[in-house]
């Protein structure tokens, strides 16, 4: 494995184990990324990519190992302190839009975690579709609108580290393209991003590095520059 050591990792995970009830789902994940970088977690369904994000957020029954964010240890923090103290924004699988809340209420739900969060106006500028449906209930949005809302919701909080889980899943190609533009824009604004992605063609041009996860472990790390040379390996990992 060829992990280059970063000078200033924003997120550094070492030997992360996680459990749901009695079942042991992560078996020692190691990964790191520097401020402003974007990494992807690749792998098959059930490999442990989403669980890795959920473990960072404290959404598993038990976790062990080390999660350093800006040098601070988060492994023992209670779940509700993680997002504010680490300035994380989390966009869960299946978007996590609350059905009984309106678009505006969904947007305003997560508490502010830092300065320089985007204003509601800025967000509606970034996602013009949302501006027209701001009073609508969460259930009555299209998949694309829900996904944009889920991203907008965490950008408002002032989070600097974004954990995005399967944001292109089930969306039309035109919306996927829009999301690609949004992510590139966010990266250029200096956000640090972890992307769990099924759609490699979406992820490849955005990422600095790819982590391949299988059976709850990182089995390969591929730098963006090496992707061309590693296509066979990647195809093998991702083939169903």
């Amino acid at each position: 494995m060829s992990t280059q050591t970063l000078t200033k990792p924003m997120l550094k995970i070492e030997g992360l184990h996680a459990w749901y009830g009695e079942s042991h789902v992560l078996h020692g994940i190691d990964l790191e990324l520097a401020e402003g970088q974007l990494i992807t977690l690749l792998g098959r369904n059930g490999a442990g990519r989403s669980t890795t994000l959920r473990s960072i957020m404290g959404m598993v029954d038990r976790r062990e190992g080390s999660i350093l964010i800006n040098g601070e240890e988060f492994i023992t923090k209670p779940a509700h302190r993680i997002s504010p103290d680490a300035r994380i924004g989390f966009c869960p699988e299946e978007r996590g839009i609350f059905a009984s809340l309106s678009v505006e209420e969904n947007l305003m739900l997560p508490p502010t975690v830092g300065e320089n969060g985007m204003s509601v106006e800025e967000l509606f500028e970034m996602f013009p579709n949302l501006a027209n449906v701001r009073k609508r209930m969460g259930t009555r949005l299209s998949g694309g609108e829900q996904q944009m809302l889920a991203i907008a919701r965490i950008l408002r909080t002032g989070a600097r580290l974004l954990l995005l889980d399967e944001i292109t899943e089930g969306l039309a190609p035109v919306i996927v393209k829009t999301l690609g533009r949004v992510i590139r824009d966010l990266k250029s604004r200096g956000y640090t991003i972890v992307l769990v992605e099924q759609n490699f063609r979406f992820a490849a041009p955005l990422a600095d590095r790819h982590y391949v996860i299988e059976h709850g472990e990182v089995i390969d790390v591929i730098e963006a520059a090496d992707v061309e040379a590693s296509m066979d390996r990647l195809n093998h990992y991702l083939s169903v």
Partner: protein
Amino acid sequence: MDPMIRLILAQGMLGLNNGVFYAMLSLGLAVIFGLLNVVNFAHGALYMLGAFLALILYSNLGPWLGLDALHIGFWPALVLAPLMVAGFGMLIERFLLRRLYKLDPIYSLLLTFGITLVLQGVFINFFNASGTPYPGMPDSLKGVVNLGFMMFPKYRLFVIVFSIIVCFGTWFIIERTHIGARLRAGTENPELVKAFGINVPLMVMLTFGFGTGLAGLAGVLAAPIYSVSPLMGANLIIVIFAVVVIGGMGSILGAVVTGFSLGLIEGITKVFYAPASNTVIFLLMVIVLLVRPQGLFGKHG
């Protein structure tokens, strides 16, 4: 006015007066159930506790402290007693209920049933089991108002209006405010709400406190109407369960509307066949179960 209509209106008003308590208690039960998935059997006992606290503040606290002239009256009790009940509720949540969230909800039902028996037993020991009248009704609410079709006690009218305001206020907080949005989100997906940085365990404790506080408030309102007795809550909670089965626990407005309407129906039943007034709510529950098992406002079966 036709005497029959007059009688129906009069009984309807009295029924509405009972409906106040159905509405406030089923509302609290629904708020708690939404977030905690707990059916609080002790809700009736906490209503009884509210009534007793009002009584104690007026009649007993002074003598206990050796200050015979001390009578803490209705208005302060209307604030203090619900807060005390809410505090007690929060202790129950923090130290007892919280241990049971990962288990089948029947365990929290049984736990709160146990709490009911304890509270009831304690008050039967220290107070008259058959009831004590509450002497602290404020002078400003004594007397009657002419409603055109009947002379209605001023206090009861106050209770109806006041509780409608409380129920509407609760609905407003939950459905229209930022705090309410957090509560609704917590009801849907507490894990994600926690991951957004909201202290869900604290929110759960406060919500339980709020729901039980509503029960305490209903108890204070009931004290001047019914005699304050250790068993006043036990019989009521069973009716409330029927109300909740009829309305479904999914909706705040549903709980309130069902509560008031059933009080009204119960009152009017008295006009036509008095012995059935005890059971009419249960019989309506049977009909609802046959026709619409998920309840009038329930979303799914």
